[in-house]
Structures are given as structure tokens and as C-alpha cells.
């Protein structure tokens, strides 16, 4: 009898504990995204893993434009050619292996052997040497100011167990459940349709808030939103801005925007032919555009207003953009483009811009429409052409264009020189109009080897000034913001900055 009572009491208490646990533990987070994760190969597809809380990096890029240690304890610039990286103590991979200088060096060595991104990012002659159990000294031939950003870049030196990755040969499926990363969630399954991960109970930075998560790969944006609406997902990434009115009118789901990001819709002016061979017309266009209207009226605040080429939170950002139609009209008059009826003409030719957009970015349709309306007030016509491949169209042998618009990142995890080199540099493969400003080219070259932050900010500031007042070529229509569609459970979820969608603290929003 006593034994029976004892058993019942134990059973009751076990049920109570299990009920309490079930109450305190939220359900696994369900994300639906547009991109699929092809394999468990860390060098090729590993970068997705840091976006969903599986993998981590040595450094992290923050919304204020700085790079701060993540898996590192510190990263110090000892002299112009030497950096010392100290690995944070007490971190293990999900498989239990300790993260130390050897483990980090193994990843660097492996990435340099198998990843083009890593090979391309590290200057020739750079050495990584173990100088302590948790310390690595990085020596370079020339100053390497962008190292903190390189170590924050998900595609370059993501931290994983290199030994475990080598051991599986080409059979990447063996890395499922192998715990090769250090993040709060461990991958348990990866198919062509979905990734599943569970909580890493030995996570170094506190207990992860969720028991696990799933990431479903769905290319169709409408289906992603409907999945949230139908309670099959909590968060839909990358919804089109055009969906916002529908989402706002649908009960139970929300369109959330996040911190201002690192790129925007950029306009490239063809400086090789009229009308943009005249600097005054370029200046006039930039002063005609109403950046506030584009961000806050046309896109309803889903984009941030461009006050300059860069996100205004970054220390080097200059707020150089001004909307002044009167000054723009004066510049056009001065350049000889005079009003004739409702159009501006010069030597009998109407001022009509050939604008190139592309269908992969549906938001370019309302943007180019807004541009058309704004410049029309000053007597400038716009002829919009949508092309299949914007880079091919703007390049050599492409279409006849005056203004090309494309979505671009201007800062790559804190690193500024790649965008400038590629789009404005003398040998840049996306310098569409062969922009050739000797001072800008010299400044880019100097930026690449300048470690001093103050001087770097000065260089970037000067480039921004030139691109507005002296020799405009590229400008931002807006600065992008992260955006998601969420259900009531995640109503308070803010889209992650720099693609950090899931952190250890990501959790359902507190009940209202």
C-alpha cells in the first residue's frame, strides 16, 4: 500500500515537473527563407549557419559600424604590420572539442586551401602564427586595416572544427549532427527543403532561449508570407515591400523592419555621354531626388532615407545629400538644358534619361516610378528599361544607358574598400562607366593600407564629398533595412543586422 502511494506520488511529481518544463520552454522557432542551404560543407555553405545561430565568427559587425570580438577575447593592432588575436577562453565546439589557437589556425589553413573567398581576402605574404595556447600573431607585408572586418565576414573565416570537416572527405552529410560549430544551435538534419537544429546545451554564452529551430527553404515570397499566416512558420524572411499593405491588413501577422543596414538601391550615372558627361547635370539629378519621399512615402518607411552614400550610424558617414529642386533647376539652366514647354532641351534635344532596372528586384519598379515623377517636375524625362542582367547591360557591349539602378552593399561586415575598388576603382570589374577620378583612386589606394581610424574616416569622408559636390557618379536612393513578416508569437522580433537572424536570446515576444 505504502509502495503504491509512493509510486503515485512520484508519478504525480514527475508529471508536474514535465508540465512545468513544457510551460517554460517555448516551441522551436520556425523560420522560412528564400535561399536553400545546399550542403553541410562548411567552406561552401557554412556561411548560412552563422545567420541561423549555428556557427560563429571570431569578430562581429555591429550597427554602429564597428567590429567587436566575438569568439576572440581581443584583437590588437600591435604595430603597422602586426595583429595579435586572443581566443576567448572556455569555448568548445558543439562536439566538445576545445576552441583554442590550434583549432582557429586549422580553420584558417583549411579555408585558405579550399575557399576562393579566403584566398582572395588575405593579402599575399600574410602569416598566421601560434604565439600562445590561445594567441595567434598575424604578420603582414603591408598594413592590413580590414582584418577585423575580414574576421567578421561569414564567407571567409567561419569557425568550425576543421579536423572533423577533413575527416568526412566529400561526404558532407556526415557533418549533420557532428557538432562542428560553436553556436547556440546544433544541426540535426538538412534536406533540400529544410534545416533542423536543436539547442546546444554546452553553449559557452549562456543557455540558448529556444529548444531548437527549423529553417524551411521557400523561394516564392507569397508562399513564405502565407506560411506565417497559416501558422506553419513564425518568421518569414525577405518579404517584398509591396506585400506590406496586405500584411498590415491581415490580422495575426506583422511586417517588421529592422536596423538600417549596409547598402541600398544605388544609382550609377553614365559619365561618358550626354547628359551626365556634364558634372552640373549629375549634381542636378542628385539634388532633384527627394530621398525622404522615396523612403518614407513610396516605401512607407520600409527603407531608410539616404542622407549620404552610407548608413548614417557609421562613423565615417557624411550627411551630404540635399534635396533642392530650385538649385537643381539653376544647375540645369547653367548647363544649357533650358525649359521648353514642360521639357528641358539643349540644341533641340530633349533631356530624357535612359534608366536601367532589372526584374530580380521588384522594388525597383516603384522606385523608378518615383524617380520618373520627381524629375519630371523639373522637365526631365525618364525612359525605363528593364533588363535581365543589369551588370551585363551596364557593362561593355550592353545597352545604351544614362542611369543604372541596382541593389548593392557598400560595406561588407565593416570593410569599405571592396565596394569602392570594384565599382569606382580604375580596374574595378563593375566600374560600369569607367569612372576615373585620380583623387578618388588615390584615396581608395590609401584606404586599403591605412590602419588609423581617424584617417580612414577622413578618407571615406573626402570620397563622399567628391561623389556629391565635385565629381558625382554613384549615389544611394535609400539605405536598406532588414524586414520580416512575423506571427503574434514573434511580434516583437526585430530583423537581424548584417544577417544575424538568430542569436542565443532570440525568443518569443513577451505576451502583451
Amino acid at each position: 500500500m505504502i509502495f503504491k502511494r509512493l509510486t503515485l506520488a512520484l508519478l504525480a511529481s514527475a508529471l508536474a515537473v514535465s508540465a512545468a518544463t513544457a510551460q517554460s520552454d517555448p516551441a522551436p522557432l520556425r523560420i522560412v527563407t528564400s535561399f536553400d542551404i545546399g550542403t553541410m560543407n562548411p567552406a561552401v555553405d557554412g556561411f548560412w549557419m552563422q545567420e541561423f545561430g549555428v556557427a560563429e565568427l571570431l569578430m562581429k559587425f555591429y550597427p554602429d559600424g564597428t567590429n567587436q570580438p566575438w569568439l576572440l577575447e581581443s584583437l590588437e593592432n600591435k604595430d603597422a604590420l602586426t595583429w595579435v588575436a586572443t581566443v576567448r577562453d572556455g569555448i568548445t565546439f558543439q562536439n566538445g572539442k576545445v576552441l583554442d589557437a590550434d583549432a582557429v589556425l586549422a580553420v584558417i589553413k583549411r579555408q585558405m586551401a579550399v575557399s576562393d573567398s579566403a584566398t582572395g581576402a588575405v593579402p599575399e605574404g600574410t602569416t598566421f602564427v601560434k604565439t600562445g595556447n590561445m594567441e595567434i600573431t598575424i604578420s603582414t607585408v603591408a598594413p592590413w586595416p580590414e582584418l577585423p572586418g575580414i574576421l567578421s565576414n561569414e564567407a571567409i573565416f567561419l569557425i568550425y572544427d576543421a579536423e572533423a570537416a577533413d575527416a568526412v572527405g566529400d561526404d558532407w552529410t556526415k557533418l549533420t549532427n557532428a557538432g562542428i560549430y560553436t553556436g547556440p544551435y546544433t544541426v540535426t538534419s538538412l534536406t533540400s527543403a529544410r534545416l533542423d537544429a536543436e539547442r546546444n546545451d554546452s553553449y559557452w554564452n549562456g543557455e540558448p532561449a529556444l529548444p531548437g529551430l527549423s529553417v524551411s527553404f521557400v523561394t516564392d515570397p507569397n508562399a513564405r508570407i502565407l506560411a506565417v499566416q497559416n501558422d506553419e512558420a513564425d518568421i518569414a524572411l525577405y518579404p517584398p515591400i509591396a506585400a506590406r499593405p496586405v500584411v498590415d491588413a491581415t490580422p495575426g501577422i506583422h511586417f517588421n523592419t529592422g536596423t538600417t543596414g549596409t547598402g541600398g538601391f544605388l544609382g550609377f550615372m553614365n559619365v561618358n555621354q550626354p547628359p551626365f558627361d556634364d558634372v552640373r547635370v549629375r549634381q542636378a539629378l542628385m539634388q532633384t531626388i527627394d530621398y525622404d519621399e522615396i523612403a518614407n512615402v513610396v516605401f512607407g518607411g520600409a527603407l531608410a532615407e539616404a542622407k549620404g552614400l552610407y548608413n548614417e550610424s557609421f562613423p565615417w558617414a557624411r550627411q551630404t545629400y540635399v534635396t533642392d529642386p530650385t538649385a537643381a533647376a539653376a544647375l540645369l539652366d547653367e548647363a544649357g538644358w533650358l525649359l521648353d514647354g514642360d521639357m528641358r532641351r539643349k540644341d533641340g534635344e530633349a533631356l530624357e534619361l535612359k534608366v536601367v532596372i532589372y526584374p530580380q528586384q521588384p522594388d525597383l519598379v516603384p522606385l523608378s516610378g518615383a524617380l520618373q515623377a520627381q524629375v519630371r517636375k523639373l522637365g526631365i524625362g525618364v525612359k525605363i528599361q528593364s533588363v535581365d542582367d543589369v551588370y551585363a547591360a551596364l557593362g561593355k557591349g550592353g545597352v545604351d544607358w544614362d542611369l543604372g539602378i541596382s541593389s548593392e552593399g557598400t560595406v561588407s561586415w565593416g570593410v569599405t574598400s571592396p565596394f569602392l575598388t570594384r565599382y569606382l576603382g580604375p580596374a574595378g570589374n563593375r566600374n560600369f562607366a569607367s569612372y576615373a577620378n585620380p583623387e578618388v583612386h588615390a584615396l581608395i589606394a590609401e584606404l586599403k593600407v591605412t590602419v588609423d581610424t581617424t584617417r580612414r574616416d577622413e578618407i571615406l569622408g573626402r570620397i563622399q564629398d567628391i561623389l556629391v559636390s565635385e565629381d558625382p557618379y554613384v549615389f544611394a536612393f535609400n539605405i536598406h533595412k532588414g524586414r520580416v513578416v512575423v506571427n503574434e508569437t514573434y511580434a516583437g522580433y526585430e530583423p537581424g543586422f548584417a544577417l544575424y537572424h538568430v542569436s542565443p536570446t532570440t525568443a518569443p515576444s513577451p505576451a502583451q
Partner: protein
Amino acid sequence: MAVLILKRLAQAVLTALAATVIVWALLPLSPGDPVMRILEARFIHEPNDLQIANLRAELALDEPLPLQYVQWLGRVVQGDLSVSYRTGKPVLEEIGQRLPATLMLLGTALATSVILALILALISVAWRGRWPDRVILLYTQIGSALPTFVFALLVLQYVVVGAGVGRVLSSGTFALVLLPALTIGVDRAAGWTQLLRASLLQAMNSNFAQVARARGASRWFVLSRHGLPNGLLPFLTAVGVSIGALIGGAPIIEEIFTWPGLGRYLLQALSARDFPVIQGFVLLSGLAYVAASFLVDVVAMLLDPRLRSAR
């Protein structure tokens, strides 16, 4: 009969060969340097000369075009559809992983649409001019006019989300195939019903059907024994010819219903200009079309002795 079938087979092989020329030409005739496109798709934005030269040699792009085609065809015959620019994996392997889900969807859709068209056409002819016929005619007109993807979007919005039937996120299992298959099937059956109805009416107005009726045969007997066998040939041909369109249209439906078949893979390939994948898909649907046409020809010859003597 055997000679005729062999003749048809030879025609089918020639058609398939012609299709391979067009499929192969996708790569060399598309604008821009394929080497740069491949490197760009592999996120190598600023390749060095060695990377460019290695890839050019690997793809044999310096060889004359006819030789490139012959080499490509040789690899295709051996089952080598090259490697996806985007994922770096063999195209055949990637298609093979996704093909079962697509075949399940298309097979169910095809069966649904053929059965539906048969039933509706028979009902329509049996009750010609009365309300079932009018309702079916209205359906065929709406179905023929409405693009499948619009129908799919309506089904997703109002049936799945609105009425709570089925799921938005498909798992690719048989339990969830019915809704997308029905969407394709109901839409596809509309045109086929119109065609079969017209053929059946023509057969029912023929002398042999009138004689049968004059002898006292029932409406259903005449329809099933005389009308259907004679009206079926144009219907079968239409079904065979539509196989290519069915495969070609499936990616959009798969995309809308998040069906994990070839659809998303192909759309991503199109977006990334992943030509080996596009080539693989077009080749597959082209060959499926040629094979279906050949089978329809053979079946038609078996069903209709006149076709055997005429050819």
C-alpha cells in the same frame, strides 16, 4: 506494323537529336563569356588569369563549336550533364534527387486530368444541351482562360489558408500531393474536356452511331462502344503533345505550392543563369515530349487500323 513503329522511332531519335542541338546552343550562344558567368555564379567576382584559363580549358571552349557539341553530346549520352555552376554538384545527381517528387506530382496531375476530362466529356455529351452540359462548358471556358498559376494562387489563398485544407509548406509526400495535382489537373482537364467533347459529338453524329441508335442501342452503349473509341484518338494526341507543356509549367506550380521537386531548383538556376541545370531540364522535358509523342503514335496505330495502312 513493326516497320512503322521502327520508322516512328527513327523520327523520334532524329527529333531528340535536333532538340539536343538547341539545348546545347543555350550555352555558347547566350550573351557574354560563359567562363565569367560561371565564375560569377561561384562568387568569384574578380578571377585571375589562371582561374579563367583553367576553366576555359576544362570546358573546352577554345575548340570549334561543332567539336564542342560532339564532345558535349558524348558526355550527355554517358549521363554526364556537367556540373551546376551554382552548387558545384553534378546536374544529373541533383535532378535525380528532385525528380521523384516532380514525377509524383505530374503523374497524379496527369491521371487526375485525364480521368476528369473523360468523365466530364462523357457526361457533357450524354446530356448535351441540358444543365450538366452547360455547367461543364462553363467550367471548360473558365479553366481554359485562367492561367494555372492564378488558379494555384487562389487555391492556396482560399482553400489552404482560408479553409484550412492542406498546408502551405509541402513536404513532398504523397499525403500532400493531392492539392497541387488537382490544381494542375483541373486546369489542364478543361481544354481536354472541350476537345474530347467535340470528338465525341462528331463520332455520335456519324453514320455508324446513328445506325446503332436506330437498332435500339441505349445512349450510354453507343457512347461507350462507338463514340469513345472513335473520339479518343485526337484526345490521346492532345494528351501526348501536352506532356512537354505539363513538365514546362510544373516549376511554377511547384514554386507556388513549395513542392520540393525540380521547380525551385530550376527557378533558382534560371535566376543564377546556371546553364548546365537549365540545359539538363530542357533536355529532360524535350526527351519526355519526344517519348510521349512516340508512345501516342504507337497507341494510335494500335487503336486505329486505318492509321497502320495509311502510313
